[in-house]
């Protein structure tokens, strides 16, 4: 007697009958619909890339690879180069991470491991609040509080003590790479703290207990056992923070000085890709000008893509190594 539950691969007729049956039962529909949702994210990304690629065609054909090495941004002479913007984006993102990562991970460790539960939960509320503040507000904070502090106290102070370094030379305007980096750091710290804290708290209890039972101090068990265990998640949070820092627009344009320059000094004003697109796109007349701005958008997209790809690679490598060590 033929089995009533049909095997999909048995024959075309029985296969379609089983498909129709699953459809009627709702399983296949659910699968199809959720598959479409998942595919739509890929589609949107592809559409984005296609649009950026197409609309930047004029600039790409005119400038080619030189676009990445030219420093000039002249809308009148129609000479466009991306180098100052790429430099500014990378420098501000780096400065923000250099400040935010130690602070963020340190805070997360405190909140997850060393603080009493009530304190940890109430501080977490404020951190989530910080993460939800719109970036324009951070920009205002930057303009009215950070910039004057930088110009009147921090930058002259740094110049006096570390002024021999090219990093801290030049006139102190208040706005510039360093200020933008600091404002960005304030914006991305909540992300690092939130995610790292979650990851640290999810480290299984027996890891800590095993370390403590072997005679480790509280700090040693935290730093040498728990944190390395949560390494993947913490790295993930850092790359989340990096993604935000790379794309941040309003807060950056209010404190970076909006001057396309490349300078070794962190006091120098600069420009970032997101800031120049936000500033110049609406008034950009001229097809080549628009196309150059769109090509900048494409560059930012590819930069983010590249860094995220590197992040994934890093996570894969470290987890393989970690697994290897666990097995050894």
């Amino acid at each position, binding site marked *: 007697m033929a089995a009533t539950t049909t095997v999909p691969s048995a024959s075309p007729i029985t296969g379609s009958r089983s498909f129709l049956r699953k459809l009627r039962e709702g399983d296949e529909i659910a699968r199809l619909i959720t598959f479409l949702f998942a595919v739509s994210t890929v589609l949107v990304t592809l559409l984005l890339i296609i649009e950026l690629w197409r609309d930047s065609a004029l600039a790409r054909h005119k400038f080619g690879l030189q676009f990445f090495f030219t420093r*000039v*941004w*002249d*809308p*009148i*002479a129609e000479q466009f180069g991306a180098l100052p913007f790429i430099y500014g984006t990378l420098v501000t993102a780096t400065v923000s991470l250099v400040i935010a990562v130690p602070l963020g991970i340190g805070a997360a460790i405190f909140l997850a491991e060393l603080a009493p539960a009530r304190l940890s939960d109430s501080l977490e509320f404020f951190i989530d609040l910080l993460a939800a503040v719109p970036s324009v507000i951070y920009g205002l904070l930057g*303009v009215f509080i950070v*910039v*004057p502090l930088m*110009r009147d106290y921090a930058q002259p102070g740094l110049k006096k003590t570390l002024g021999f370094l090219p990093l801290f030379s030049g*006139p102190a*305007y*208040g*706005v510039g790479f360093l200020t933008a980096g600091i404002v960005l750091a304030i914006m991305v710290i909540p992300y690092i703290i939130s995610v790292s804290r979650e990851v640290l708290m999810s480290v299984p209890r027996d890891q800590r207990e095993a370390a403590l039972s072997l005679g480790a101090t509280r700090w040693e068990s935290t730093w040498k056992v728990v944190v390395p265990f949560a390494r993947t998640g913490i790295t993930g949070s850092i790359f989340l923070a990096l993604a935000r820092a790379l794309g941040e627009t309003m807060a950056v*344009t*209010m404190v970076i*000085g*909006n*001057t396309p320059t490349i300078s070794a000094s962190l006091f120098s*004003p600069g*420009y970032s890709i997101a*800031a120049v697109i936000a*500033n*110049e796109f*609406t*008034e*950009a*007349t001229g097809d080549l*000008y628009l196309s150059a701005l769109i090509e900048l958008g494409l560059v930012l997209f590819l930069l983010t893509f590249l860094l995220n790809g590197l992040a994934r690679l890093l996570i894969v490598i470290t987890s393989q190594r970690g697994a290897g060590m666990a097995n050894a």
Partner: protein
Amino acid sequence: MRRITGAIVVTLALSMVAAVLVHAALSINGAGATFPYPVYSKWFDEYQKKNSQVQINYQSIGSGGGIKQVTEGTVDFGASDGPMNDEQLKAFQDKHGFGILHFPTVMGAVVPTYNVPGVTSALNFTPDALAGIFLGRITKWNDPAIAGPNKGVNLPAADIVVVHRSDGSGTTYCWTDYLSKVSDEWKTKVGKGTSVNWPVGLGGKGNEGVTGQIKNAPNSIGYVELIYAVSNNIPYGSVKNSSGSFIKADLASVSAAAAAVAKTMPDDFRVSITNPPGETAYPIATFTWLLIPERFSDSAKRDAIKGFVNWMLVDGQNYAEQLSYAKLPNEVIAKEKKALGKIQ
């Protein structure tokens, strides 16, 4: 269930009626310059009160956006602080088969503002001083080019911090147009445009950004729209005009600038009124224009727009001064009324 269905049916019916009623009004769309937005929105509002069947919607997306959208045909008219150049005019002609006309509406001016500790009076600036400062040639406040016309003012030996606009704008267009006229070096090195390659200086976004930078940075100088400076009580300097007098910008001196050029105004109204002749003229002033296509397929829209422009040239001008915009000179008004006949 029946109550819900009933409610839905009633809502749909009401919204359809509302849609029909609203649709009965003639809706005209425009987009463009942000600078004249206050007076434009007042005008469109007042005009609709007198002509309830005409509704004009205006989006201030920027002069560049206005030119682009009217060329694309997504809006019925555009508005721009800088006239369309020959390339843009040709693009419009090629796309539509007919031309586009410029109609000046009001005038504005750009003023040099600064923040020099200890200086409370209005400084006098010569064209050479302004060009030199923005080119980066003049770097200290007590440079003779600045100190010369300001005898009696104690200018510090401090570095000048230059502030300009980071976003493209008609204000920049007017400022750089003036500098191109008074300085050959500026003309060849930088040129004029809504966005230029500034030799020196920090960029602030919008008039507000520039003002914010200047207020917070001692020894800084920048440029902002006159109306913005007046309504925010910002100190600004006088500029030497082509007759040699130092003029502080106000409605009278801006109108004088336009009047000087009115007699030699070209028929297409695309004229720059920076550095004009005239004893009392302020040298850094500009018209702002409505960009209206020559032909309309919808005769109702054409008549409505022509009606609006006629009203604007007569009654509308009276609202301009309340909002601190300078009125058009009478010769220009007369010329524009005649030019309206070109729209078919």
